[in-house]
């Protein structure tokens, strides 16, 4: 079963998409791991970065994983678009001697080497706590979901709803069944329409990822509602940081994508080198509020040094 051990290790990193800043940071983390490992000496490590051709198409991601399997890379770090659809290709990769490490979003299988991810449920709970405190436990709250079948965001959404229900019974959820879709454009449209419907007596909003948060933010800004409703989002990007400074966004649950990419590659390489690894690695999630923006500790998470590792990024 052991492939003849070549000197160089090729690690394929497969994100859910390539165009969002979140994935840029993961890419940077993976490159960081590559550079560090190569500096440490030993077998050289080479990272390949490749997303699905169409951003939200599971079949396309399946094809990418299969391609890497037939290419016989040393290992794959995968952020699965779906917890089920990627099971077969991952199992087939393992059968073909290509170990797979899962990051970011869960896979319903135990065929993987390890699972490196944020505790998404916890992220949702943090957001619920922040919003609950801001609203003093009462008011109308709207949650815009991301997309059908996305495990990580569903966990955030569920965590958020559950915590609100348990700890802040005075808060009413006015809508939690509309989907933003995967692009800014769809998210913005959905937000605009929902804000018109529920905006009059709305007190708080939660969105579970980068695109939905920015879509909602743009809608709020364009409609002149920004700053008038309490708004908690997820993930970090420049436009969101600016909004926090303008008090249009009251908190973001920030993961550490760079660390996720970094640990993903490091852990997979360690496993390939037969070093002991953990089966589940939590990369942490923090609630960043406008007041915390200038703390040095937050700087590194909200604006990870991507440029250092990605030319032109």
């Amino acid at each position, binding site marked *: 079963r052991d492939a003849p051990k070549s000197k160089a290790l090729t690690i394929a990193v497969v994100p859910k*998409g*390539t*165009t*969002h*800043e979140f994935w*840029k940071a993961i890419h940077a983390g993976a490159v960081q791991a590559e550079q560090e490992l190569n500096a440490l000496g030993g077998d050289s490590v080479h990272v390949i970065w490749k*997303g699905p051709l*169409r*951003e939200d198409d599971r079949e396309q991601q399946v094809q990418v994983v299969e391609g890497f399997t037939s290419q016989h890379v040393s290992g794959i770090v995968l952020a699965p678009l779906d917890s089920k659809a990627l099971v077969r290709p991952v199992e087939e990769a393992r059968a073909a001697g290509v170990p797979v490490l899962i990051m970011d979003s869960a896979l319903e299988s135990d065929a993987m080497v390890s699972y490196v991810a944020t505790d998404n449920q916890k992220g949702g709970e943090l957001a619920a706590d922040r919003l609950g405190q801001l609203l003093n436990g009462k008011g109308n709250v709207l949650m815009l979901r991301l997309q059908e079948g996305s495990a990580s965001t569903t966990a955030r959404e569920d965590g958020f709803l559950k915590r609100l229900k348990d700890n802040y019974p005075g808060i009413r959820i006015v*809508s939690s*069944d*509309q*989907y933003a879709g995967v*692009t*800014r*454009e769809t998210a*913005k*449209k*959905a937000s*605009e*329409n*929902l804000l*018109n*419907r529920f905006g*009059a007596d709305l007190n708080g909003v939660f969105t579970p990822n980068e695109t939905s948060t920015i879509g909602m933010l*743009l809608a709020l*800004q*364009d*409609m*002149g509602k920004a700053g008038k409703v309490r708004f908690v989002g997820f993930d970090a*990007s*420049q*436009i969101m940081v600016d909004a926090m400074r303008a008090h249009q966004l009251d908190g973001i649950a920030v993961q550490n994508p760079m660390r996720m990419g970094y640990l993903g590659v490091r852990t997979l390489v360690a496993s390939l080198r037969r070093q002991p690894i953990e089966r589940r690695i939590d990369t942490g999630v923090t609630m960043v509020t406008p007041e915390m923006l200038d703390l040095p500790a937050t700087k590194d998470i909200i604006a990870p040094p991507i440029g250092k590792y990605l030319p*032109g*990024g």
Partner: protein
Amino acid sequence: MLRTWIARLGPALGLVIVVLVFALLTDAPGRYLSTFNLRIVLSQTVIVALGAIGMTMIIISGGIDLSVGATIALTGVMTALGIRSGWPPSLALVAAVLAGGFVGVLNGMVITTLRVVPFIVTLGMLGIARGVAKWLAHEQTVNVPTTWMNDLLVTFPRQGWLVLPIGVWTTLALAVFVAFVLRRTVFGRRIFALGSNEAAARACGIDTNRLKVAVYACAGCLFGLTGAMQMSRLRQGDPTVANGAELDIIAAVVIGGGSLNGGEGSILGSMIGALVMAFLRNGCQQMGWPNYIQEIIIGVIIVAAVALDRARASWATSHA
């Protein structure tokens, strides 16, 4: 005369029905019919409406363009790249329009010189333009510094007296202009002639090849502007945006009375078609209905609109 009016009113009637139905269904009709909501719908319509203006020209001329979504993405990315690298926004805007026009000229040239049907040429261009967009953007979204470009489609413009976003006014102005060109100028009437009977147009001494290239080029310029608007709306150039927009845009033209056989279509109709779809989306979302209901309703409306149009036409012929 009467018949032309019925034909023109058909889509408008559809629009009124859509709006009325939702106003009756919703528990907050006041909010649904508010000027606030109207503004939202209008600024959401801009992308499809602008695209539909160009597509109307192409469809009247007897062609089709599947590459419009990809062209929007490409020109949006180019605008963003221009502004990011310090160009004045107006220059970036012009560049986007020209880039769109260039894609159009390419489409037109391949269609006329290689004599491949528009469906195939623009299907190929769909892949090419989107590929180039991703290439230029390094497969990422291109974020831009804040300039006035970002305000083109802000629902409530900074200058209160504008009432509607600049983008909406621009679209309106272009719609009126292109409608005028199509109805009242030599160029416009020749586009109708080309779509209605290409052989006859050629026999009357019209250089149909050059005309076709010109039509795709003009439409391309409009798609370029649409790309710039899209980038203004999202505040970033996104190479994956507007995926499948071609079908929405074609649907708008078809709902508005355009015929894929060429020779028929109007800007007014296409604008109404775009509004029908925007109001449907908006209404379904306000009702809290899931997306799939929208998709089903829009699908049914597309077929029904064309079927009614056919029925009307054959009724008119038999009563001529």
